[in-house]
């Protein structure tokens, strides 16, 4: 390379110019693949369930007072490209003739399923021994808050709960 041309710009010669161009073009190409790939990867996380729906759980008259009743119900879910049904369980707890609550069976600690123990009169989470009383209040163990309650309504003695989906 001649001295005249080199003197033209001491910082920028042909080699460093081409190195820069190659690095920039490589970076742009990597971004063209990389940025869509991020969107592609996180895309399912951005799809949140939109609707809410009332689901019939059964007759209030069939539930004994002070005796939580576990009831299964189905919710329609879209699992990727598969439309399927998921079976969930809720506890109907009847306090007296007219007062009742419906509890989720999902532990508020780390989402395991709790069960009702007739013997000990508590809900027990088998994962980390979270204990709840009949109304879902915390007794002991790691759960940070009481069991979640479904929004309910009563029509002709039929109990309905509001679920997502």
């Amino acid at each position, binding site marked *: 390379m001649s001295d005249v041309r080199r003197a033209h710009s001491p910082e920028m010669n042909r080699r*460093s110019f081409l190195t820069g161009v190659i690095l920039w073009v490589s970076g742009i190409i990597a971004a063209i693949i990389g940025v*869509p790939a991020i*969107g*592609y990867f996180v895309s399912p996380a951005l799809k949140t369930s939109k609707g809410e729906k009332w689901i019939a759980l059964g007759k209030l008259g069939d539930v004994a007072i002070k005796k939580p009743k576990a009831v299964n119900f189905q919710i329609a879910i879209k699992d990727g*490209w598969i439309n399927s049904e998921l079976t969930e369980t809720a506890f109907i707890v009847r306090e007296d003739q007219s007062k009742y609550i419906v509890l989720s069976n999902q532990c508020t600690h780390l989402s395991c399923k709790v069960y009702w123990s007739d013997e000990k009169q508590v809900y027990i989470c088998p994962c980390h021994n979270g204990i709840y009383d009949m109304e879902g209040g915390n007794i002991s163990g790691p759960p940070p808050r009481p069991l979640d309650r479904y929004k309910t309504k009563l029509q002709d003695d039929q109990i309905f709960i509001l679920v997502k989906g």
Partner: protein
Amino acid sequence: MEEKQNWLQWTADRIGWEAIDKAMLTRKIPKVNWAYTLGSTTLFVAIIQLVTGMFLTMYYSPSPDHAYDSINYIMNDVTLGWLIRGLHHWGASVMVILVFLHMWRVFYYGAYKYPRELTWILGVLLLVTVLALGFTGYLLPFDQKSYFATRVGTSMAGVVPLIGPFLKRVLLAGEDVGTLTLARFYGLHIWILPALFVLFVVPHLYLVFRIGISAPPVLEEEDEEGEEA
């Protein structure tokens, strides 16, 4: 060497990639033409195929019940899924075209001759691997076209003398295209064949760097700037 940032110098001291840079990127090459970029272009597309293929496995399901629906899902429901799959789909054809162009350039200039015979042999193995990747990948959408293309392809294997019928049953994992065929084509497509590709391409590139690329064969008096590698 220009002034380097501290972390760059720190890693360079330990890895010694100035030597790698010298051997790979700033090595001397003879005066060549654009046809000599076909190998790099093929490698570039191969990397795109590898990356987009990895991402496709996150949604694709290799079972006859789900394969087609899962690809539909990628195309219509996943953010930019059409782009990732589109790159992989068209990249596959581009890949086959490029390896042939690359091979023709090497053949035309006689670059396969001494001392580069091993590079050529590895290149032939790479060609076969790429064609096998194309053939196995073609079945994965599990639509009408891929179903019958696979029947045709495996039936061709079936007419090989003596071992043909057995070879066909091995490829299909049975008598006809089905669940097991799709599963094994998927396994071949995402694990075995890419592994073979890497296994062949690494020594292929090593030989290119070690021996250097050949100059186009021109008459002595025309060959002014060509530096023999």
